[in-house]
């Protein structure tokens, strides 16, 4: 972990259904700074705004106010097109439900982001194969998600997230759908990637157990940070 700030939010807020009776203040003036190579857990009860924060950082949702600066770039001002491109090269996403395309094989699911660049198909597939082999899925390259276990599916999702060597990997309850044993495996995997490649992780979780794998835990309640502390493993 270095001192370089990779992510910074300034007074970040998100209001859903603004101006209607259904108005919800999901996030209220969030200010955080995350250094390159940090592994951060975001915790809090359901509906506190964890996933909203993750979506805003990942650029798949727009803040109502405030700034998100990733690697010195204010992504809240980017156009949709620019944001998408930014996301492709800088953000890796891992979801609770794995979010793999059920009609693509493990290899195809993994290789997708690279196929959106100018990389040749051969090179892209070679890289994806290498990544999957590193994840221990070398013998399941051509398996469909339905033919893989939950843990294996999440490894494919991790491979896909890592393939572009993004600045930050965002995990939205990445082990929420897995048993404790498999969850540990996945978190160990994250940890080892984090340690070996100085990869920044931001993981949203309910679980203290999962948070303990991280360097730092940010607690959110009712859209506001109530605690931000270093600890864990």
């Amino acid at each position, binding site marked *: 972990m270095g001192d370089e700030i990779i992510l910074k939010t300034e007074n970040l807020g998100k209001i859903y259904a603004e101006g209607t009776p259904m108005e919800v203040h999901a996030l209220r003036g969030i200010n955080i700074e995350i250094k390159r190579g940090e592994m951060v857990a975001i915790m809090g009860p359901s509906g506190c705004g964890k996933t909203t924060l993750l*979506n805003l950082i990942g650029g798949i949702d727009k803040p109502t106010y405030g700034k998100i600066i990733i690697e010195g770039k204010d992504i809240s001002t980017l156009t949709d*097109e620019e944001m998408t491109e930014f996301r492709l090269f800088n953000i890796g996403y891992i979801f609770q439900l794995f*979010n793999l395309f059920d*009609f*693509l094989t493990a290899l195809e699911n993994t290789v997708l*982001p690279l196929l959106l660049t100018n990389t040749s198909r051969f090179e892209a597939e070679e890289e994806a194969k290498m990544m999957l082999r590193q994840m221990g899925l070398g013998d399941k390259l051509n398996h469909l998600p339905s033919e893989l276990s939950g843990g294996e599916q999440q490894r494919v999702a991790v491979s896909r997230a890592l393939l572009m060597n993004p600045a930050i990997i965002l995990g939205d309850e990445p082990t929420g759908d897995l048993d404790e044993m498999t969850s540990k495996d996945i978190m160990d995997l994250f940890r080892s990637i984090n340690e070996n490649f100085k990869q920044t992780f931001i993981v949203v979780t309910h679980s203290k157990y999962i948070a303990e794998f991280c360097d730092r835990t940010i607690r959110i309640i009712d859209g506001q940070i109530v605690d931000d502390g270093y600890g864990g493993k």
Partner: protein
Amino acid sequence: MDYINSLLTKTFRRRIGKNVGTMIGIALSVSLMLGVQITITSFSTKALGFFTEAIGENDIIIQNFGFPIENYQEIIEKIDNSSIQYAAINWRVSQDVAVYNLEKGYLEKGVSFVGVELDEDPIFGRFYHPDGEIEYTKEELEQIFSDNTSVLVGKYLFDDMDLRINQTIKIRIGELQGLQFNYKTYDLKVAGYIADKEKGKESGGRVLWTSIDNIRSIIGVGNNSVTEINISLSSNHDEQPVSKDYACEVEAQLKEILDVENTGLLVIAFRALVLDTADKIIKDVLIAFNLFGALIIFSGVLLLVNIQLIQVEDRMQQLGVLRAIGSKRKEIIRLFLMESAILGFIGSLLGLGGGYAMSIFLVWRIGITFFNTTVFLTPIVTGSAVLYSFIVGFTLAIGAGLLPAIRASRVDPIEVIRGIKKVKERRMGTGILVLGISLILIGVSTFATQLAVGDSFFSIQGWNTANEQWTFMGAVGGILLGLSVLTAFLVSRKVMGNSIGFSLITIAISMLLFALPQLKDVADNNKILITCVVLLALGTIILVGVNLKFVTDLVTTILYKTKIKKGVSLISAKYMTSKTMRSTLTFGIFTLVLTMNIFASIYQATFSYNTLESVEFLSGGASIYVELDTPIQNDSLVDVERDLPKVDPSIEYVKGINTTISLLQADPSAKLSIPSEIFAAYIQLIYNDTFKNGSKYVFDFMIEQSIGKFNEEYKPAASEEYQRRYSHKIWDLFYNRTRFNRDGEKDPNGLPAVISTNPILKPGDVFNITGLFKPPIEVIVLANIRQYPFSINSGFPILLVTPDLLPFLSYNFAILPKYTNFLVKTSENFRNGRNSEIANKIETFFNGNESILIKNNDFVAASAYNVWEEMLEQVDFQVRTFDFMQIFVSFGLVVGAIGMIIIAIRNVSERKREIGMMRAIGYKKSQIILSISLELFILAGLGLFIGLINSIVLGATFARLYDWYLIIPIGRVLLYTAVMIGIAFLASIIPGIRSSRITPAEALRYVG
């Protein structure tokens, strides 16, 4: 159970937008079903009405070949005393005449000049004043007809000949002297015209009306004589129709009562005959209508099944949850059943309205295309069509929604909740084994039966009959499909799919290539061809559908070579493969529509080109033909053969043909393509020098099919030289008065041979030619002429006979004792020459005010036709027919396209989550649009490609069948393909854009 009801209501409300989409999809497909049926019904009803309007309520006609029926009162009395129940009876004196409007120079042939009793039963029609509201009173009629030259004219004739009240017209009418008509010119005065209204007399028409006494005095018939007795069996056939069987039963009764064997009277169930004949005439068009209609309906079915599949798949997640919380399978099925029933019911109801709207436009086009009228025709909606469409739409909607739901209810709830959309495959059971073996056994036993009974399933003779071809096709189909089904049990479903696809294609192609060219009956050919079209389309759709993965892999490889991002190509291609059924249904719609459209245009172009190309060869040197309505009475004035060449220096040769009309009675063994065993025909007397000058053929008509073993030598695809040699051989048999037995073999004691110019009378058919005051003569048809000028406009078949039959037909020919038909050979270029100008000069020669015949009051009504122009008109009608078919099909296309857009939009809703995933990974909006569009576009492209190949194969087969040169109208093909691509583009881009508007965060939360 309450929670299911509550869930049903809630989800129905929540998904209202999607449900509306589904309902529109169902409505569109029901629209196609109903629209097609209304259009076809309206066409056939209008066409039949076209034939029956002038008949009015008349059912049976009693006649005596145009000669008077003496003592008609006795006949009426006999009928009255019999058990026959009739609504009305009348008697008239009539004759077909030519009418000349000297003031304007207009001439009309074949006008009925009819004398009626003034108190005739109004069932047979009324005389209406021109305002169409007030009837002529009996007193008015007596007043008008008190001058025996005054006539009332049908509205159509009045307008057509540009007549005016009180003007004098000339008619050419036959005065009976002994057993012969002497033709004279007679002046009549137009007293007024009758309004064109309803049926019978009111329908206006081409009729001159007078009193029965007046006409008797003009044509020299006694007071006890009439020329026809008409019997109406129902006072309103629309409300109380008379069945054909009943009419024929009464006809048979009358024949007995009137002792027709001895009196020679003709009793004909005229209305039934006209309706049946009309049925046959419109049959060919109806076959095409039904073919295209069936394919349109089929594409509607594909649309409906497609949208219902989406409806179910979209709710997989919900289904898993329901199962997990303890819902029983039957509860889930009930949920879907209710939903499908509601959507199906409302959608089908909406579809009925849509179908009617569709038919309004199509029926209007029918008026323009077939009946030459811009008057708006009302679509005829039958209860059965509405019921059929509604029931089929409703049932399919339920079936297509429910069957996947039943299948889906077998899913593992855990997997579904986890988002794994995988359904357990059921193993093929023994049922399929039994089905496969049964099909094979049926096929084999059919073959065995055919071999034992027909003794010929592999021989050319065997395949000459349509039945044996159907049997062969059915047997091969049974065996191949049986084997295919067996593979599902023994190997896999995929192999079965492939086998079925191949089987259907194999049957279609082999029938097209081997069977059809051997079958020489056009009507049978068309039926087989239609079946082959459907089999080919189905086969290719199944084959490609089963191998969609292979196809999409190929497409992906190609796409990878383009500039499209590989990630976009991969998603599109793989998604298609994952939804095999829906993708197949999608490209199936495009395949069907394009097959229909392109095939129609290829057929149209090929038909037109080849028909016109062969006209000159087949016209045998006759560039103009002339028809006189009556013979020239005073031949010292004009000798046509001698004088006509003086009309124009280009006229090289004129040959007169003695023609009469007679009745033919078919031998029961003759397989006629018309229903009646008795029908009228022209008989032409052909002498050895009629078509030949010495040993040289001046008019060299080609023979199409012939009797017995000679038919084996017939090769429609052979060179012109071969065809000429073959034809001359048959003509020689005819000129040499060769007789044949019923087996088609030469036999000096056999039947006299005649040549037919109409495919109704086929070689080998045996007929009685009914001669006046003579026993009928039995003849056998030796051959058909491929193209005969006098057949172009003739409503009746024409039989060519040799002079050895003259003694039997002497009285018939006595009616028209001299030449009335002429063939004219000119030195002009057949296509681009002055033949039309010469034809006009010929008509002026006979009918112009300066004509020697007119001046001597001995006019004949002559029509001279340029064969090339006449054939152009015929081809033009075919072209217009096919143009209409394309409009017909285009409707299917438009509705199909709207359906595709709805399907694609629904598809986007279903894939919301996937789209969110794509956006999260880094797919730009434009890439999302491209991937969604590309997927549909590839499917459309696949459909287009298969459709194109199919239609070219079909077109080529047609060309081969008739020895035509295949014409692919590149312009039209490109146009339709472009239109289809445009529609595919539209159908793909709209959902694509819609998908790009979904925000990723919202999409990722989507659960269906």
